[in-house]
């Protein structure tokens, strides 16, 4: 079901409107036209389901997938998060129809789209490096999909013009229609790429590392802006990222991939607070890991009881995983000994880099006192997770 743009309504142009990244938020939410269209668009969102997708490559090439199943709700904003080589981009390309899976099916709504070629699948795809057509203007880039339709379904020239102008409004670039991609900044290209993908009224919007090639400030602004656009269009959106902050901040749900398998799917707070595996735990945030043992309802490190075990935790040898922010300098029973490596001031206070006895890497812990490298400290554990030793 392709979404429909509402009928033309005159858009009032703000005099001297300058689409700076910083002004995006207010500009976008202040536009009444888009808000009124949102309801209609939201109804058009399509669910996406992939079922036991298998994809392998002999030798070099994108990462393989080993039987991935995932369901995305209509209108959902889902992040595929994982390290490079985890298969997240491959999965996105399989959904788009750019990769042909060796096994498994892809469904849009109730329709099996596995064998539908990419041209007819009706997806919008934003490429990592945007893949704008260098020889075409911004206008022609955005109009490309409309002009690609069979003659019978192709909109009239004035209709194309109207739609492209609306999209340029939506992505806040109304004055750049005649520019060529080479004359745009990275952030502007990104927005043109998104407008081009939206122009074909896709049932699903797919973005491959949408902010990967941008610098930090533009990244942050565009992130917020993408959230706005998603709110307005209600488009089922899947984006790939290797940046956990990006996924946590943007997505309704996150699917975490590792080595061609999905480790966990859940809302940001779920994957953060209840990681399903040690990999998820360490991938979504800084983690200190210690060898420990669970026995008699207690977790012991080197024979010392640290915290009580929660029901359902595995027994026997485990990995004890700790978030730095769950650690505080303390005294007495249940603390973990460690050595201060370094102490420094930051914008938000003072931190100490502490290597816990038995840990492989140091963690940064907020402290109030001044320490010297080599000082011995004890850390109290506020919360922890254990995973079977692996």
């Amino acid at each position, binding site marked *: 079901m392709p979404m429909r743009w509402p009928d033309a309504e005159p858009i009032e142009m703000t005099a001297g409107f300058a689409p700076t990244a910083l002004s995006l938020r207010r500009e976008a939410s202040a536009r009444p036209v888009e808000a009124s269209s949102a309801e209609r668009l939201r109804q058009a969102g399509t669910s996406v389901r992939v079922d036991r997708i298998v994809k392998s490559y002999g030798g070099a*090439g994108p990462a393989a997938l080993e039987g991935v199943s995932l369901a995305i709700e209509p209108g959902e904003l889902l992040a595929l998060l994982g390290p490079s080589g985890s298969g997240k981009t491959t999965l996105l390309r399989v959904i*788009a*129809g*750019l990769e042909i899976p060796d096994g498994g099916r892809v469904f849009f709504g109730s329709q099996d789209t596995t064998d539908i*070629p*990419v*041209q*007819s*699948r*009706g*997806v*919008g*795809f934003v*490429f990592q*490096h945007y*893949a*704008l*057509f*260098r*020889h075409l203007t911004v206008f022609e880039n955005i109009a*490309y*999909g409309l002009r*690609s*339709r069979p003659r019978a379904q192709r909109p009239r020239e004035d209709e194309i013009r109207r739609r492209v102008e609306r999209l340029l409004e939506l992505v806040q670039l109304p004055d750049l229609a005649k520019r060529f991609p080479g004359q745009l900044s990275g952030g502007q290209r990104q927005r043109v790429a998104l407008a*081009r*993908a939206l*122009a*074909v009224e896709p049932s699903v919007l797919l973005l491959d590392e949408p902010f990967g090639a941008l610098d930090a400030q533009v990244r942050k602004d565009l992130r917020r802006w993408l959230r706005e656009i998603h709110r307005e269009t209600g488009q089922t959106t899947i984006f790939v990222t290797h940046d956990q902050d990006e996924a946590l901040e943007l997505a309704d749900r996150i699917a975490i991939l590792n080595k061609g398998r999905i480790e966990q799917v859940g809302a940001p707070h779920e994957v953060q607070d209840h990681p399903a595996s040690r990999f998820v735990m360490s991938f979504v945030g800084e983690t200190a890991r210690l060898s420990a043992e669970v026995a008699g309802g207690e977790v012991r490190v080197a024979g010392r009881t640290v915290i009580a075990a929660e029901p359902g935790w595995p027994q026997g040898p485990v990995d004890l995983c700790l978030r730095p922010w769950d650690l505080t300098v303390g005294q007495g029973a249940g603390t973990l000994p460690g050595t201060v490596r370094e102490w420094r001031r930051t914008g938000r206070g003072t931190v100490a880099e502490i290597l816990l006895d038995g840990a492989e890497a140091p963690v940064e812990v907020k402290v109030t006192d001044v320490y010297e490298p080599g000082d011995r400290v004890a850390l109290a554990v506020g919360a922890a997770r254990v995973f079977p030793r692996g």
Partner: protein
Amino acid sequence: MSETTVPSIRPPARPAAASAHAALTEPRPVRIALTVLAVAFLGLFLLLPLAVVFVEALSKGLGPYFASFAEPDALAAVRLTLLVAVIAVPLNVVFGLCASWAIAKFDFRGRNLLITLIDLPFSVSPVVAGLIYVLIFGAQGLLGPFLQRHGIEIIFAVPGIVLATVFVTFPFVARELIPLMQDQGTTDEEAALTLGASPWRVFRTVTLPNVRWALLYGVLLCNARAMGEFGAVSVVSGRIRGLTNTMPLHVEILYNEYNYVAAFGIASLLALLALVTLAGKSFLEWRHADALAGRGAH
């Protein structure tokens, strides 16, 4: 096997700026001596032969020079040369586009072998290129008796000349496009596909504009060779005046008849073609260096 067997005939886009620092360059007298030696060598081996063509052609004045083109056999040779180029160049353009699409956009076994095979005609003597067609289509050739029975003439006729020309110009377009298209990858095409474009539209509106300057570059070189080929064509042509004589063959005939003004007159046309080709090539390298890149990448 490596993907390139014949190197770029294109100079690097931007030569490194010469260092002014004394320790990092040669002493001034050495620099001057080396430059003079290099320029003298080029002047002696390249510039003088080029100059002599025009001087000889004009040695008897403008009248005889222009008279040499007006001669019917000369005109026939010009026409045949153009005809051969008009057939051979488009054939190799179509082939070059197909080959570069298949090789650059897909990953299949034996790809590098295919690239090597496409370069093969570069390492075959033009005379051998003519010979192989004589062995197939000639009177004593493989298909000779068959062709004779049906009254089909290939050797000592235009089809043979076209075939030999196609052979020697075979790799020109493909080898300009393959490295560039490999470098460009498939993302632009994928983007067009996700926007619903048909395969033909993807090729016409995305791929072709991306490679247009490299294509023009290849066509330029292909055409120069097609019009100037001598060895291969001379073997299959039979040199029938007015019928199977191309311009280079006509130059040979006139020269062997001691008709130097006419020989160098026709030769000067071919030399002009060469100069135009070099100028066009230099222009493309200067103006569209980025669009031709993909070469220096490996």
